[in-house]
């Protein structure tokens, strides 16, 4: 079964159509990259999947998105977001909360664990999984605002993982990080994609080539080409795709 199926998704922002009928099948596990030039709807597509678009009252959505066969629009939105975690372009750990609380708060609210001891273990597990634990284990109670950009992003990954999701959405996660921090995140993605379905939006074809197993090329709100990463990069079927992966448009 596919982890996510997107069925003729159309999204309008105040009468401007941003997504014009998207059809995608995202298989379970592995890393699925959505690439394309800036401003063509990639972030919008991602935010549609975990229904984050609904925070904006001017948005109109039609079509369907299914998570393991069930339509997300018919599920309780809290459940959707528990199963589908998200990491954002700008690392956004809550600066007024400690590192521990950043990871623990949502897990506690969603009753992922039963008691304090299990919560401590969960926080440790999540931070380890996000390759951050060793760097912060002595200052879990310090405020998250004291971390570097790369560390903040890994904290956000830990925070999302603490909810035990099945899918992890990543919206240009390294766009605002330096090359070393970016490298660490990409390493992490290689680890995570063994257990989770990772859907990553990227504006860098090179990054897609590095981390993804499957890739979709989106241009002006439409899917131009989709397939195995080596297929799309070495033998692109569409002229636009070739232009994009060779850097002639971007």
């Amino acid at each position, binding site marked *: 079964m596919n982890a996510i199926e997107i069925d003729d998704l159309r999204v309008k922002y105040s009468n401007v159509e941003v997504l014009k009928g998207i059809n995608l099948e995202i298989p379970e596990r592995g890393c699925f990259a959505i690439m394309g030039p800036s401003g063509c709807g990639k972030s919008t597509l991602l935010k549609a999947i975990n229904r984050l678009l609904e*925070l904006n009252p001017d948005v109109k959505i039609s079509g369907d998105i299914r998570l393991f066969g069930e339509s997300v629009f018919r599920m309780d939105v809290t459940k959707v*977001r528990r199963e589908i975690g998200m990491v954002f372009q700008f690392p*956004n750990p*809550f600066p007024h909360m400690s590192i521990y609380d950043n990871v623990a708060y949502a897990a506690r609210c969603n009753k992922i664990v039963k008691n304090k001891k299990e919560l401590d273990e969960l926080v440790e597990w999540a931070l380890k999984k996000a390759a951050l634990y060793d760097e912060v284990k002595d200052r879990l109670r310090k405020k998250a605002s004291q971390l570097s950009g790369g560390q903040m992003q890994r904290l956000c990954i830990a925070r999302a993982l603490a909810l035990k999701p099945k899918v992890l959405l990543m919206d240009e996660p390294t766009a605002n990080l330096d090359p070393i921090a970016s490298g660490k995140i990409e390493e992490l993605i290689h680890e995570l994609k063994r257990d989770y379905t990772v859907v990553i939006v990227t504006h860098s074809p090179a990054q897609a080539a590095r981390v993804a197993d499957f890739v979709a090329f989106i241009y002006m709100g439409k899917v131009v080409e989709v397939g195995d990463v080596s297929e799309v990069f070495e033998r692109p079927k569409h002229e636009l795709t070739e232009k994009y992966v060779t850097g002639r448009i971007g």
Partner: protein
Amino acid sequence: MDRFKILLLPSVSLAFGILLLMLITFFLNSWPIFEREGLAIYTSNIWRASEIPEEEFYGILAAIYGTVYTSLIAILIATPISIGLAVFVVDIAPRKIRELIVISTDIMAGLPTILYGIWGIFVLAPILSNFMVFLHDSFPFIPLFSYRNPTGYSFLTAGILLAIMVTPFATALIREAYAAIPPIYREGAHSLALTRYEATKLLLGYIKPAILAGILLAFGRAVGETVAVSLVIGNSFNIHPSLFAPGYTISSLIANQFGNAFAYSYMPHALFAAGLALFFIGLAVNLAGVLVLRRWRYA
């Protein structure tokens, strides 16, 4: 320094000058009572006027008590309402209702305080006196209800009236801060499968200093209010734990007693000493609020 700046300087300096002059004036005019009574003016609850100057003795402890008591009641009521209102306006209210609420709270903030006063004395106090009589007769053993024959002119009435008057200030500050939270944190909170209650609690933690500043400024506003309070507090020297008891606040004491103060030698000076106390309380609380806000904004 260019000429233009020099030209404008006097107008700005005027504000500082006035504040300084006020401080000096109050000090000078309170001095006689400090000389005579020392700090007893603030620590005792006596108001003994007399034709014979040697027998005059004044202590405004009751007024200080009343000021603090009523302002505390006011912010205890105003704080949750201000926060709830701010969240409602920013997160939930549709555009039209949002505008209506914001304009209404602005009207309330600017409305002449005497209108609150006349409503308080002729409408609120009578309504509350019914409740007070009921509560006193039913639970007279509870200290908060323990004043006999409550008339409706009391600490509680003043506190409620003050709460109504200061909420618009507090909520405007909190609302602005809440609306200004960067969208990435809002999106982050919601992406974590939180209910509205849980996400809001998180985001309110982000603006905690603004909430504190709002409370401080509201308290500062409450201590300074005069006419509305003086019409509903009962104007009597009373240090009583009951909500239903009448009392004084520093500002209502000054307003109420100054009329006949000049008939006595020391009473005017006592009232200036009261004004000095109010000056410092008002300055301290407002300054604290402004500083909390500044430090947070530049963090």
